[in-house]
């Protein structure tokens, strides 16, 4: 039995204009929440569409729940998905829209009422979809993805249009699903959200996977840094000189010295600053967060 929910090997999609996805290699273990990140046009949605059998790869292969994506009928009954935002029939009610999909997938329609409640749409299930706000549409999309009680849940930007409370609800829901063994493969541009819930990260840039693995490994690859503030602005340059003399890269950004170096060097720096008569008002060792790492790895400036 496979231990991987998703695995891609040299997965590629080439159009006349070039590669949308180029030789992508990554694995997502069962039961984890995996964040799928990349700038717009990086190939995230193309990859998701290939995994769901909606478009054919031009090279490589991938497996979902141990089955090749060339036979999506073998695994899609265990996969829930919301791709590129919710899409439903405007003239049908939210509930009726879910019943169409439940009937089509062979799932009990009785499941619909519970899902409407789970995603916080109780009382609006019998309203026409065209009357829904963006947040409500998004919730309905998540409900549709949950219809099969999936082993693998693929969500493309599930928090688009949701208010902070809604975002928190989705985050809690995904955590709850993962705790019950559901693998969640979620793309989002809200990197701080992904950082809070993801155990794994797949990072794409211009169609290529630049990182795939546990999120901790990603952070370990990044340089820790120390932020330093001094009582006097003129002392910041002296701090930079001390850091550079010890072989650390250092710059001043927004009246704060930004020094690349491990947390344990902060003590040394503090001692040397004291000896030089510099009064440090803030000294904080930091690890880069997902957003900073993302910009670092994708080469995009914040």
């Amino acid at each position, binding site marked *: 039995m496979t231990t991987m929910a998703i695995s891609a090997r040299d997965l590629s999609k080439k159009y006349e204009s070039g590669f949308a996805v180029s030789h992508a290699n990554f694995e997502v273990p069962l039961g984890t929440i995996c964040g799928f990140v990349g700038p717009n046009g990086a190939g995230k949605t193309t990859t998701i569409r290939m995994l*769901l*059998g909606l478009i054919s790869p031009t090279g490589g292969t991938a497996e979902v729940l141990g089955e090749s994506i060339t036979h999506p*009928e073998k695994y899609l009954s265990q996969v829930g998905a919301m791709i590129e935002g919710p899409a439903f*029939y*405007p*003239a049908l009610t939210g509930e*009726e829209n879910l019943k169409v999909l439940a*009937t089509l*997938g062979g799932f009990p329609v009785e499941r619909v009422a519970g899902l409407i409640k789970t995603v916080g749409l109780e009382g609006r299930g019998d309203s026409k979809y065209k009357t829904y706000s963006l947040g409500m549409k998004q919730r309905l999309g998540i409900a549709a993805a949950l219809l099969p009680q999936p082993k693998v849940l693929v969500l493309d930007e599930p928090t688009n249009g949701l208010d902070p409370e809604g975002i928190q609800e989705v985050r809690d829901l995904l955590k709850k699903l993962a705790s019950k063994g559901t693998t969640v493969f979620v793309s989002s541009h809200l990197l701080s959200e992904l950082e809070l819930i993801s155990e794994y990260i797949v990072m794409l840039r211009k169609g290529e996977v630049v990182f795939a693995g546990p999120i901790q490994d990603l952070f370990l690859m990044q340089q820790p840094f120390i932020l330093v503030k001094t009582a006097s602005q003129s002392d910041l340059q002296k701090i930079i000189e001390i850091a550079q003399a010890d072989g650390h890269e250092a710059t001043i950004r927004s009246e704060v010295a930004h020094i690349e170096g491990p947390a344990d060097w902060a003590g040394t720096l503090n001692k040397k600053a004291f000896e030089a008569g510099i009064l440090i008002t803030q000294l904080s060792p930091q690890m880069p967060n997902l957003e900073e790492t993302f910009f670092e790895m994708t080469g995009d400036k914040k």
Partner: protein
Amino acid sequence: MIRIVRAEWRKLRRPTLFLGTIGAALFFTALTSTFLYLMIDSSRGNSDRGRQVNRALLELSGGSVYAFASVGGLLGIIALCVFAAQTAQEYTYGTLRNLLVRQPGRVRLLFGKLIAMKIFALLMITISAVVSIGISYFLSDRAKVSTALWFTTVGFQEIGKTLLNVSISVIYFGIIGMVLGLLLRSPISAISIGVLWILIIENLLGAVKPVFLKWMPGNQLTTIAQGGSPEVSYIHALTLGTSYVLIGALIATVLFTRRDVSN
């Protein structure tokens, strides 16, 4: 397959679509049937393209369904619009990706949708037939048309035959609508091109050179509903119409199964 049919039926049975379509079908049925009898003595004709349908013709055993057969082409155009819209809207709403995630068998999905729409069309045809025969019977007295042969054994056979012909015609029109929907992926384009071709272009070509009508797809399907016409035989219309529909369906099915779903 049954799951697909039932899922599609959930969409087709929504009141605005169902009642709107049946209402349109009944309107055209009532209009055609009423004109046929009320204008029986009009010098400007009482049937399509100003044709004169006289009492002798209406008093034959097939007289009860003459009006119904005449409205077959219009029912076909309604079916074309419904089939085209129901197919193409999956692309414009982006719902096709949801359907394919739940039912990845593309040919199966297509045939399931077709079966559901066929059931919808057959329901529309049956209701139209009942209304048309009812109006014809009701107005026959006023138009001084004898109905003595209408409900004999032969009369019922004629009713059955016409029902079959209209059903074939309407479903063929529907399949053409579905093909256009799949090819053009836009309800407005599919419906406007389909209706424009059948109602305007074919008639213009036919007016310029009547022999063209012998080869035009829309005219073949209308002729099937009427059980043949003075210009085109039933067998010719059925053979050519079936060929057009099969070729179109084959091309659309191959495209649908192979094309990436990227919207």
